[in-house]
């Protein structure tokens, strides 16, 4: 297996935001009862969050094409081709 294919696994770098989002927002145990936030609302909001992240990624790329200025969300896209 080429090193590139296992890069992500072994580099120990922060995971891509998309992979974190699809887990932290959509998965993990949901608890009913004495909690502060109604998770049903959160689930509806997930769609909105996805759109938000997607649009900020697009903005990010547009930004990067125009200049070399680096913004925080860049690290989520370190594998993006130049």
């Amino acid at each position, binding site marked *: *297996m*080429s090193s*590139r*294919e*296992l890069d*992500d*696994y072994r580099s120990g770098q*922060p*995971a*891509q*935001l*998309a*992979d*974190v*989002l*699809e*887990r*932290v*927002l*959509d*998965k*993990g*145990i*949901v*608890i*009913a*009862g*004495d*909690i*502060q*936030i*109604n*998770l049903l*609302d*959160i689930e509806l*909001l997930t769609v*909105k*969050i*996805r759109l*938000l*992240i*997607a*649009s*900020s*990624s*697009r903005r990010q790329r547009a930004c990067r094409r125009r200049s070399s200025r680096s913004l*925080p*969300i860049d690290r*989520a*896209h*370190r*594998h*993006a*081709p130049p």
Partner: protein
Amino acid sequence: MIAPTATLPRKGLGWYLYGVAAADEASARLGAGLAAGAAQEVELVTEGPLVGVASRVSLEEFDEQALPDRLSDATWLEQKIRTHEHVLERVLEHASVVPCRFCTVYRGEVELRRFLSERGEALEAALDRVRGRVEVGVKAFVDRDRFAAGRARQNDDIRQLEAQASTAEGGRAYLERRRLEQLVASELERFRGEAADRIHTRLLSAAEDGLVLPLQAPELSGRAEEMVFNGAYLVTADRVGFEEALGSLARDIRDDGIDLELTGPWPAYNFVPEELGAG
């Protein structure tokens, strides 16, 4: 270990629960100092055989009414989501953990402790399932050029049309090129499903469990190539058998134009029960 709370009224603090671990594993190995972020301390709330991995947070910040606005703040959102994942990854280095979903916030310690004791049995069952195991993610992307040069040529029509197009001239050459592109595209469409099935079957046989996740849009995946598969697998913590299977699969499908990307190890988000009600 308790975060400074002088600036906030006591009743304004709740508990953000990241996940639940076994007390014997977590308390002994984690000890103090699980730094969640610059401003936050992580505490272990022990209740019987279980321990809640949690931080004191401002209830105002995580108020249900205020949340929609917070969620539109990309910086706030990314920071909180990263913190959630970072804390659980630190725990996972030392102990098995049942991860909670984003923004699981209790109004007080009493409520958090009640959850741990009342739902103890279900939590311990969930912990048993993930003990000694981790989740890994596998994503597959297709490189269209390599697909067209390799796998697509197994199709007789494509090979024939390629031969014709290479000898044709002028307008006819253009039309045949177009037809060839269309044919390769429809072959790729067919091949995508076949490749996804093949990848999942091979990987599942080397894992304890596995499931197919929705494909990520290019804006989210961060790659220009098209994603053809996205899966999550529950594997033994050493990951040896799974990595061997993955390596052999990657070699087998490389000539078809497919590259695999491995992520993790993750807390087993995809392999814990979704609903864990208050009973």
